[in-house]
């Protein structure tokens, strides 16, 4: 019988994770499996108990050379994963692709629908495009993960056209 990868108890659950088309097996005992699947953030004020290192995602497979860096604050994605805290607001742009699966994992969602500050309020039309863009990008990622390259190519074209629409709008008055 296999042992749990976290503790030495016998593993009763065998989870097959498929990331970027690669299957990895994770063997866990019942207790650790519950943690693994829930990854519950029960801490109230600081979120320090959220265990990022237990979340497996694409970044694990990155070579050092591919570890993205935020040009604004200098933090690398790997550094963030180690400390669980981002370095600056721009990280959400710099690590967008890496953060999307993480946010999906934490919140089950990747699109904010709550309050908007009045100072950066943007036109609803522009916001729609942005939301659409975010949605397409996550679909693209899923398509690549599932090796559906044909639909991935289509999605990529749609993303490019949306992105150029958005940058045209940047020039005009909003």
């Amino acid at each position: 019988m296999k042992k749990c990868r976290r503790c030495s108890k016998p593993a009763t659950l065998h989870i097959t994770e498929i990331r970027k088309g690669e299957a990895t097996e994770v063997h866990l005992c019942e207790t650790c499996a519950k943690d693994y699947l829930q990854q519950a953030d029960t801490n109230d004020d600081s979120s320090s108990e959220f265990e990022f290192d237990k979340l497996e995602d694409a970044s694990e497979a990155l070579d050092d050379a591919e570890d993205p860096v935020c040009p604004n604050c200098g933090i690398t994605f790997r550094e963030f994963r180690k400390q669980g805290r981002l370095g600056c607001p721009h990280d959400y742009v710099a690590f967008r692709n890496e953060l999307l699966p993480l946010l999906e994992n934490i919140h089950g969602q990747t699109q904010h629908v709550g309050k908007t500050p009045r100072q950066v309020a943007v036109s609803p039309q522009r916001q729609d495009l942005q939301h659409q863009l975010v949605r397409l990008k996550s679909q693209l990622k899923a398509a690549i993960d599932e090796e559906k390259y044909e639909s991935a190519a289509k999605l990529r074209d749609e993303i490019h056209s949306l992105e150029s629409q958005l940058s045209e709008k940047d020039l005009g008055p909003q």
Partner: protein
Amino acid sequence: MDLNSLTQNDSEWLRGTGPESDVVISTRIRLARNLAEFPFASKADDSTKARIEKQLRDVLSDLPLPKPLSYINVASLDEIERQFLLERQLISREHSEGTGARGVAVSRSEDVAVMVNEEDHLRLQVLRSGLAFDSCWDEIDRLDTAIGDRVAYAYDEAFGYLTACPTNCGTGIRASVMVHLPALVLTREIQKVFHGLQKINVAVRGLYGEGSQAMGDFYQISNQYTLGMTETQIIDKVREVIPVVLGFERKARTALMDSKQPELHDSIARAAGTLRSAQTISSEETMHLLSSVRLGVNLGLITDVGLPALNQLFVQIQPAHLQKAKGATLNSSERNVARATLLRTKLEQERSAHS
């Protein structure tokens, strides 16, 4: 603000009134916010932190709101004073033990507190006695809008309010209720309730204590997700489970009264007796016994103590509060003596007030 004036005050949120106050101690909403042009705490050096603090202190001291906020420079406080603010739930442990320029802006009745330079640049909180989500949200929403009109918040159309930890981004909201669940602990049904809540992604944690056995049987129930739902939806998700939890606790209380009233009454009366006569007592034992007495008051088994006084004792018996009241640094055994004295005095006062 003079910390000593806080010592004289009783926190508004402990006044033991408000809807469902036999089980619900308080309702709290907090919002995490950051300034767009500054790095988060982990990448902010001392001079950056000082600039953030200066800007926010100025904004917070001059908000056009009905309740003015007084700014306390937390970095200049000694350890007991920081612990004192922590015990009153005005700052977090992380903020209390942090480094560099930081502070907290507090309303006179302590129901509003805004931490500066915690994990996020701003942590707003509104606290109310009893179950009071609507009034908490109204007030914190206005406070947030007033601050947001004066600074540029870090915000992204997809990820909402940007926070140092991605577990808070989106709305940045944590809506929580502090509940007292002694009967569920006594009947050992508390774990079942927890599992039920976790299944629907509502977080529960013990207050004051470590692990699953919360000191004093206090628990905090709060939302887990902050992104992908509106603030109101998130609040409603927590709000919806509260009547269920209250129902379980009250059912457990009735069951105890039906099947084990003599034993229950005995242990509650003995708890009150110990608190009234102890000459030295640890905070752990005190919390345990106070919890038992609080249950006794709610069941009508104890009639010479009021809930507000009891609620306040849970805070007043803590180390920094004892030392502030004495005006001196006390070691652990001195604190145990001071704690026992305070308990005897307060419970005697209550007895004469209720007779």
